[in-house]
């Protein structure tokens, strides 16, 4: 694998250059201190401000990069009262900079999901011309919730990435994973230089330390095994159902949740059909026109989410629907989360 180094002080210059060719998405600080994946401004007067707000430290973005390719609200088509329909597909060239390794695995999961059976043009055209630059995690961004080492999705990637950065203090070691990554680095070669042997060594030891720094461990494989062969204990489901306030936070921050609702909106002869994220934890999710609601019981809705991610996704594609990012536990007001669920079914203790 080809390796380079880049000085951290050159990152903003690199991103500004890239901003001429790509739509650049990067973790940015927002009012209140939340770090969110955001689009770098194309306007000179606001670009400088955006650049200052970029945060590539070990902060985890509240949102996952999912919404770059699959926005929460997406217009699918425009139409008028003459019955003329125009599809609205977005296909800009994108650079997504600063994706965490677990979230990169989630993108691979999404790529598979949106291509199988029927190709989802909205997702795939957004994703088509995109370059992803991953930053490995020296420290777990959510120290109490990240459990990537148990799932095998981090804290660094070993393959399949375009570019992966290893944080070495004042500079990054740049690992180039494929031709797409190489093209990008070559195009901006003035910012990149060849690494010294020390730097490569430093990166290797950083990766080993990073592995140690992820302290939350769960028995993920045992959980998958149990899910494949056994029913989730009723008691477990009931306790989740009792506490869940159905806010939907866990599914909105989840980098692999894909469910959506579709609605039309029309005014003065012009209309749009849109899709909007929806979630199986909401009670109306499965309600049918007859009033019959097969998914009405709350504990079954809880089961559905865990089974889908841990059992059915793994059985179907070999890719787990949970990537260990920890966002669900971090965002849940009542401390329900995938890692707690896994702990409960693999040990006999209660964690929430």
């Amino acid at each position: 694998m080809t390796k380079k180094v880049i000085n951290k002080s050159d990152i903003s210059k690199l991103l500004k250059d890239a901003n001429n060719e790509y739509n650049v998405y990067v973790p940015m600080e927002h009012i209140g201190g939340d770090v969110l994946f955001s689009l770098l401004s194309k306007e000179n007067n606001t670009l400088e401000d955006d650049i200052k707000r970029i945060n590539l430290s070990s902060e985890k973005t509240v949102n996952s990069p999912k919404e770059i390719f699959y926005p929460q609200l997406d217009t699918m088509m425009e139409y008028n009262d003459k019955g003329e329909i125009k599809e609205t597909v977005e296909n800009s060239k994108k650079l997504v900079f600063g994706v965490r390794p677990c979230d990169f695995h989630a993108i691979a999961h999404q790529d598979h999901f949106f291509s199988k059976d029927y190709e989802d043009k909205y997702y795939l055209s957004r994703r088509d011309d995109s370059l992803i630059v991953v930053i490995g995690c020296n420290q777990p961004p959510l120290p109490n919730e990240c459990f990537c080492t148990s799932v095998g999705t981090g804290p660094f990637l070993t393959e399949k990435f375009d570019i992966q950065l290893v944080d070495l203090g004042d500079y990054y070691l740049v690992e180039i994973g494929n031709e797409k990554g190489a093209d990008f680095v070559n195009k901006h070669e003035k910012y990149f230089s060849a690494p010294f042997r020390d730097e490569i060594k430093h990166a290797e030891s950083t990766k080993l330390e990073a592995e140690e720094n992820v302290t939350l461990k769960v028995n993920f494989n045992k959980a998958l095994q149990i899910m494949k062969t056994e029913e989730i204990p009723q008691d477990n489901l009931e306790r989740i159902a009792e506490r869940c306030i159905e806010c939907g936070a866990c599914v909105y921050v989840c980098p692999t949740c894909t469910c959506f609702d579709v609605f039309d909106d029309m005014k003065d002869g012009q209309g749009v059909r849109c899709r909007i994220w929806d979630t199986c934890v909401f009670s109306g999710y499965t309600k049918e026109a007859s009033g019959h609601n097969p998914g009405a019981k709350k504990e079954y809705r809880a089961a559905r989410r865990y089974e889908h991610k841990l059992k059915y996704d793994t059985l179907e594609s070999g890719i787990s629907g949970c990537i260990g990012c920890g966002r669900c536990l971090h965002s849940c007001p009542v401390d329900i989360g995938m890692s707690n669920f896994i702990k409960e079914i693999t040990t006999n203790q209660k964690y929430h």
Partner: protein
Amino acid sequence: MKNEYIPYPAVIESLITESFDTKTFKVKFADKKIAENFNYVQGQFMQVSLMGVGEAPISITSSPSRKGFLEFSIRAAGKLTKKIHELKVGDTMFIRGPYGKGHFPFEEIKGKNLIFVAGGIGLPPLRSLINLVMDNRKDFGNVKILYGCKTADEFCFKDELKAWNKTPNTEVLLTVDKATDDWKCRVGVVTELWKDTDIKEDNAVAFLCGPPIMIKFVVQKLEGSGFTDDNIIMTLERHMKCGLGKCGHCNVGDKFICIDGPVFTYNEVKKLPKKDGAM
């Protein structure tokens, strides 16, 4: 890449008011090329929409043996379906599909006796197969059609019911939950019809469509009459938003009803997780 979400205009050629809440629409694709290349299989459905109102899954009730048009029987259940009921001949609706890998078998059931059991708006999807069988009548044994509604004014396809009943070796049996004075057939739930005809697993396959509670009791009856789980075939209904296995709404266990169904054998249905309310 084809955009599967984009619907195509289809013009209403004729419409029949079946009952107080159900109308049958005969439509043709406005685009001749699309019309010519369009094929479907009995038991599949389309996503039917009105721009500005919404989209819903609707079974194709016409038989693939009758080409050049599509028929939908639509019950006014809510926002979209009520608006569709306001449409007139010559008006346009928008459709995409057909969807559902799980459809009714045809070649496989040749030579067999067939039992159809429908409740309420459950007859339209079965009708696609029934008329396909009628158009190939000599290839099949006895055909029994058991059809129950809440009240007599809910029955659809009244002329066809009579015509099917007149076809040799074909029997149509009706029942209502609540009878009016002029009702001459049976009163009671659809399983009551077992009293009026001899139903046995004698080289027979049963096809079911109706509300979950009906399905449950009919399956019990059929099992009592000796049917195996593979010879009980049903359509499952689920809230659906895409028909493409993407929106997630119809997901049950490892299946998506929209693409893996909507037709399943009872054997397959039994394997779905019970807690997801498959039945």
